[in-house]
């Protein structure tokens, strides 16, 4: 290289205008405040206001009335049913979701794309239709109805139907979260574990599971929130039998239709509280373990 490189004359730079944005892709100040303002007004009107209303209405007649809404037998039964439903649906979808994601992300097989599409189905079908499917299959006039009646098994208008509908609606949460995450992680670590003598189950427990744990927790959280809050599909199969087949969302509807506003909003505040807790934990997870759940979160 020659050493006679020319000395570059200093370029006279124009004074920086202080009201100019920091980067070319950042809008001017007025536009920025306008956009932020619109977003805040929108959020306040459609999210914060209704949420506040729920709590204001719930406490309209004081603590005693609020608590009374929960001590009532029907309310307690609704809480119990909701917990039972989530306690069955969430673990089921946890196991299914991990198994499906494992199969799809780590193996090649025929019909893989079809399986992925099927997993997404519950998200694209109206929840009412999801409920109706079970009525058509298991209902008294349904496909398996007469046989089930003969066996003295009741699915529709009973707890099994509610659980089935909830499982169907919350089907995609875990699998959809984990598939891209597992695909991104590849199979090298599992292969390393196998060459070191680990059994498939040992490798899954010690390598695969720890790698997906935060993504898994994240998806279980969302799955649980939906399982407890599902209305449409459950409404169709439940039959609204008080004290027997009413979940929390259905109970809220009944109370509201009976003009029992304080009780309706009190029960609703419970669901709203669940939503808030879910939101906080979800944000904490996203903040703390962003990388470990990123691959999945990007798709939502």
């Amino acid at each position: 290289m020659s050493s006679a490189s020319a000395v570059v004359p200093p370029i006279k730079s124009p004074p920086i205008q202080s009201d100019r944005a920091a980067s070319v892709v950042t809008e001017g100040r007025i536009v920025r405040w306008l956009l932020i303002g619109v977003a805040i007004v929108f959020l306040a009107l459609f999210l914060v206001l209704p949420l506040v209303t729920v709590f204001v209405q719930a406490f309209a007649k004081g603590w005693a009335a609020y608590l009374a809404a929960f001590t009532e037998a029907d309310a307690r039964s609704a809480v119990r049913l909701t917990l039972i439903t989530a306690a069955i649906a969430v673990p089921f979808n946890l196991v299914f979701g991990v198994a499906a994601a494992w199969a799809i992300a780590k193996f090649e097989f025929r019909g893989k794309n079809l399986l992925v599409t099927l997993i997404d189905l519950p998200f694209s079908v109206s929840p009412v239709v999801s409920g109706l499917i079970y009525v058509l299959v298991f209902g008294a006039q349904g496909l398996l109805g007469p046989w089930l009646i003969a066996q003295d098994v009741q699915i529709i208008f009973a707890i099994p139907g509610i659980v089935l509908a909830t499982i169907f609606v919350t089907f995609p949460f875990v699998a959809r979260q984990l598939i891209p995450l597992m695909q991104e992680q590849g199979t090298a670590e599992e292969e390393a574990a196998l060459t070191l003598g680990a059994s498939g189950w040992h490798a899954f427990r010690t390598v695969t599971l720890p790698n997906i744990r935060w993504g898994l927790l994240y998806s279980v959280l969302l799955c649980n929130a939906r399982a407890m809050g599902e209305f449409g599909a459950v409404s169709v199969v439940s039959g609204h039998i008080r004290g027997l087949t009413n979940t929390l969302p259905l109970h809220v509807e009944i109370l509201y239709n009976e003009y029992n506003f304080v009780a309706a909003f009190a029960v609703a505040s419970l669901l709203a509280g669940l939503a808030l807790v879910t939101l906080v934990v979800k944000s904490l997870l996203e903040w703390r373990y962003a990388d470990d759940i990123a691959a999945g979160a990007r798709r939502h």
Partner: protein
Amino acid sequence: MNGATPTTSRRAHGVTNPIGSSTAIRVEGLSKTFDTAAVLHDLSLDVRAGELLALLGPSGSGKTTLLRIIAGLDFPDRGRIIFGGDDATQVPVQERAVGFVFQHYALFKHMSVAENIAYGLNARKRSDRPARAEIRRRVGDLLDLIKLSGFADRYPSQLSGGQRQRIALARALAVEPRVLLLDEPFGALDAQVRKDLRRWLREIHDRTGQTTIFVTHDQDEALELSDRVAVLDKGRLEQVGTPDEVQENPVSATVLKFLGDTIEVEAIAQDGQVSVDGKLTPVVGKRGLTGPVKLYARPWQLQFAESSEAHLHGTVRSSYRTQGRQRIEVDRTEGKTVVVEASDTARLAAGLPVGLRIVGGYVFAE
């Protein structure tokens, strides 16, 4: 390096004599097809106990597939893998006792360095598992071996690429494998680290005597590091031999071209005697080889010469120096540009007419 070993080539296939005591692994008639593309074609290879064998080939030559089949991570369509006399073709990967080192390390991110190295020991059934103190001692020994003694409690994300690859090697060695398999072990590292690690791997091998197979597409790496080199191309084994053998006696143009820069010249053979431009060259082909052939030469097998003695003629296009040598590009009067290597420090001006004499080279019966 053991220079007395005979060169085996694809022409020496079909040997089915019982596996010798010095053979650690025998690959027999291996074929593998992915979808419709054949990756391995009836490939046979013996790996000797204690040797460091390089599987060298361009990408797509099937070398990684061969390594994965030996490990038990892939399965062949046909053929057998024999480990020290036992047919291991159907033996699952867990029971093959191989140590596998991946190109991108595949360390367990959520485990410390010590936990990574101890993984294989901890994964054993309780009855076979060494006591905790014994595991700790062995992890300490391995950390000493890879010169990372103070790193036991670090996590992979806190280590450099070279350090991670050393941990991966220690993890593979911890289970005392029958054979160590390395898949492009230095492929993801930068040039300097790669050189250091090469030398270091050779040292480790000399110290442990561990039978080792490593895959690489880098000729220098294979030639510098290995006891023997197996050159693969398009799923076939082209040649196996010591680095000296494959360099001095390549069995095919493919091997020759893959091992370094090659000049191709049209030539005429007359019963083994090869001449270019009507002048005889020192290159000798098989007896009876007659007709037009291709003569292959290395850049240093061409010398500048008087026009009357030259086989090739042309003009200098450009020249550059690299590590004490000079490389000159010569535009041939008829045909392609050739690169000549010379120690000559004189600079040849572009456009200078020159003559080139062939002082060595190869011809192959196609």
